[in-house]
């Protein structure tokens, strides 16, 4: 799969480079704003959706094997579109009929890439949300033990015996997984 020349926008995001990011805004923000405002949103909504879409794309681009094989604009539009649809559903609009933005060329590769980006984003958010709902003690022991240090060090840092820390970690993982399985979105996001 070959890299599209627009990969420079991805690189600007990955390096947090102001000139490249300013160019992304100057070239694409206006159209996304028109799209959101044409679909029951405001300029503030468009600004938030645009920002979240760029963050999501950057997270996806950090993953090994990511290749931008389509125009950045088409990819960005589809990610913004998916996020705005989700937001409209969250706001419980009964029927969501989208008025598409003009000026964007439909590209098959962009559709596949955007779908996979939105899926990964939704699944990451789900895991993060379930983790944040655990008790502080569980969050602490999981974050320490999954940060790459040994259980001996984890138990020493927490002032617990090794066997108790190990048992506690096992219980916390069990709780995390059981809550994940019970989440309504878990099956939808398989």
């Amino acid at each position: 799969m070959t890299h599209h020349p627009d990969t420079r926008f991805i690189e600007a995001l990955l390096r947090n480079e102001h000139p490249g990011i300013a160019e992304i805004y100057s070239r694409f923000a206006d159209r996304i704003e028109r799209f959101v405002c044409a679909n029951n949103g405001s300029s503030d909504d468009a600004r938030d959706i645009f920002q979240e879409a760029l963050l999501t794309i950057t997270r996806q681009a950090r993953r090994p094997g990511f290749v931008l094989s389509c125009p950045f604009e088409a990819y960005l539009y589809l990610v913004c579109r998916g996020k705005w649809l989700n937001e409209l559903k969250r706001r419980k609009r009964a029927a969501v009929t989208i008025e598409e933005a003009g000026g964007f060329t439909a590209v098959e590769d962009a559709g596949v890439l955007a779908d996979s980006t939105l899926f990964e984003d939704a699944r990451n958010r789900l895991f993060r949300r379930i983790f944040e709902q655990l008790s502080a003690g569980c969050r602490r022991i999981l974050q320490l033990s999954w940060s790459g240090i040994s259980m001996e060090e984890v138990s020493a840092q927490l002032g617990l015996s090794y066997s108790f820390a190990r048992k506690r970690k096992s219980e916390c993982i069990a709780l995390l997984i059981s809550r994940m399985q019970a989440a309504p979105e878990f099956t939808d996001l398989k």
Partner: protein
Amino acid sequence: MDELYARIDDYLDGALSAADHTAFEAQLASDAALATALAQVREARLRLRQAWTDEADDAALRNTLRAAATSYFKSQPAIRPASIRRRLWWAIAATLSLLAIAWWNLRTPAPERIYARYRHFPEAAFTLRAGAPQSLPAAESAFNQKDYAGALASLQAYLSTDPANLDALFFSGLCQLELRQYAAARSVFQQLQNSPNAWSDEARWYTALSHLREGNRPACAALLRQIPPDAAHTAEARQLLNDL
């Protein structure tokens, strides 16, 4: 169940002995439930680790994006005929909210309001322990239903048999704080701070909140300033200091 996830985690960490590793993989080949559990733990570890690793980069990028956005978005709502009725409802809702806030401010003393804003008790989860006495599940249920008197009674019954149980101690302190038994709560939190453990940071934070709720702002502020920069409540402590 207790050991299952510890074994899975050890397997993923490469921490099993050669014999245990071989036995685990043999079981994996014939046990679909184990394979599913392994896949779920692997995914949780990968996604959460990635999120923790990305946190600093995400925050820096978010700042850049926020700054860039101010030049390109006009911060004006789209005016649409269909939205006028919705705006009216929003205006009514906003007015009612302001009235509710005014009523709350008039009837609730300031320390209690600030305390309520910062008090985010963790969920109690004692029933996870194998062989836990019955008083612990009762305490967990009562605490999570905000029955702090009931939870405290069950926790104290349990602590009479196992006074060193840190979880039970911490949650008994929270119950005492909620029941305005400040001195008793602080005594429990002090025990938890005497040696490093999973609840030390929480105990320090809630000791500060106990002074706040009691109306002793200087004592609260003094403790907040002692919270180290890498503790669990550092950001909230800074914010609370600003509020004070």
